[in-house]
């Protein structure tokens, strides 16, 4: 804890990511699969790219 909590650095970023995750889950039920699919594939690719960096 020298002597900094994670709050000061990551909490808001995590909260924002979580809030968007919830909204995505909510609207994904109503977006037609044919439209949602390419967007999700692109997201997955970019996520993998980000994780590799």
């Amino acid at each position, binding site marked *: 804890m020298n002597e*900094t909590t994670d*709050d*000061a650095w990551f909490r808001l970023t995590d*909260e924002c990511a979580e809030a968007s995750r*919830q909204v995505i889950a909510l*609207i994904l*039920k109503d977006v037609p699969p044919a439209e949602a699919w390419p967007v999700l594939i692109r*997201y997955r690719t970019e996520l993998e790219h*980000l994780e590799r960096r």
Partner: protein
Amino acid sequence: MCEPLSVLCLAAQDVLLLSRAAAAAIRDGGDLKATLARLRTAYDRLRLTTSRLGGQDIPPTRDNLAALLSLRLSMLEARKHAAIVRRWLERHDDPDFVADALLGVCWERRRDPVVLLGDDTSDLVAQLRARGQERIIVCASQATAVEGATVVVTSPFEVRAAVLCCSGDQPARAATIKRCDDAVTKETVIETNRMVQEALDGQRMCANTIDVFGAVWIKQGIENLPIIAAHPTIDLLRDSFAGLPAVIIASGPSLTRNIDQLKALKGRALLITFSHSLGACRRAGLVPDLVLALDPEDLRYHYDGTDMTQPEASLLGATIHPGVMRLPTKRLFTFAANNTIDSWIYHGLDVNPMVATGGSVATSALALAISWRCSPIVFVGQDLSYPGGEVYAKGISDDQARIVKRDGHDVIEGWSAGYAAMATVGGQGGSAVVLREVDDWHGTGKVPTSFQFDMYRRWMENVIKQFKITAWNCTEGGARIDGCEHITLEAAIAKLPTVDARVGERLDAVAFDRAASEAKMRSHLRVMSGQIQQAGELARQCTRLFHACTPAGARGARRAMRKASRKIQAIVDQMPYLVLANQAHLHQRTGLDPIETPDEWNAGASANYQLVLESVAAFGPLLDAALEELTPAHRRAA
């Protein structure tokens, strides 16, 4: 893309670009300090927009989905850059870097406190201030002022008090704690952390309580003003019981086990109990000396069947139900059960009957016994837990209440009709209790307790330790209270010195000038009544001008509006009870941004005038009635 989402995406984009810039500043030797300052501001904006996302209706379109996924990617990437910056800063000891490491980028610099430990803090305090950090608590070896620090204290216990004293926007996060010199031990850091966490829990609970009870406290407080003025306050008892043993008779289930023995202590100690324990006392044929009550609900059912002219005195919180305040008693003393929150009541009487409440009647009783310098302080029926699922001792009106399982949750069932009726005020009835286990009285096993009981127990442990109190826990069951000697009541009775308590005589010795007190209260009420009328007139004027201001173009109206707004703010500042009564509504509007969402912000301002008008309608007649009740003619007729 829908509008709230596009605003959010722009805010997130700013955060991402500045996070990249911060990491690049480290790599390429750029101006990290300036970039972090801009990044913090970007995060402040993101905070406002994120908090509004949950309540928005986002249409399920491909564009919105793409925007949300891109937002998630931005946040993940920003987090990566923040981690790089954090790691780099933590390797550097310069106060400039330490301040950046400490504040991070997401910290709410206006609201959440930073706690610094040690004597060498002035440079870091200055750096934190330069970054916009407002609440800075320094815990040093001596209480010498440090420029820029909000407060300087000398012990972890005082840090707790300092966090509790953060008024206005209440802190929500665990404060960041930094050890600033080598003399500060790891134990002190751990203890301070624990104290800060307790204070934050207490703040949260206090805020929830104010949201629920604020308006009730004010209404009942006003209705009680004539009674309060006619009776002495507990600060007059400050020297009445010094050195006398005090027995705090709580209402836990273990009280059934040893209440019969308490009769042996009548006249040998100060017997303090709570209204809820009266049934158990009656069942055992025990007449307590002082009966304490402070909750604002209608507690009259606690007193059913008890002749309240037998106990030596009732000690009642100022905002208690007016029906309880008007029950016949041998003697009555009032006090500020909600501590400084009740200062508006006693402001005009020049008295200071504050009690460090700790959140419950049990903790208030302990605080009173400590302030009276009673010794030793003996607990009975202080289970602070639910041994065997039981809630109260036999004879208490709610003694059928038990913890039971319902749909996988622990709930308390079997409340009396009196409790069910009063629970409607606070909405507590039937809600689930989250249980946790703590050490039991014997120190050999565990006992289930609730978050609240656990918090009260820790509060007691803290004050017993801090004030070096001689305390005996003679509950013979329930939770262990560290700092107490755990002995049976029989052993305690044998150990107690033989003294003549003469409680009635001590209470009669209190000097109280009723006529002077009532005269002061009358002038206090006249001032309050004048203020509330003025606030009402200004709120009506502001509402009229508010409507005249729209559509844009009415410059004269806007100027008049600004002037009237300043006036109403000035008068409301003198009426803290008005804010207290409306706290729950005001909380909903916290964080509105006049730049991002001017319509919402405007509507919030207009709604505030409406709140003032409603408060004037609710409390104005009560103030007039209280003043009328205090007039000499009315008193003579009564």
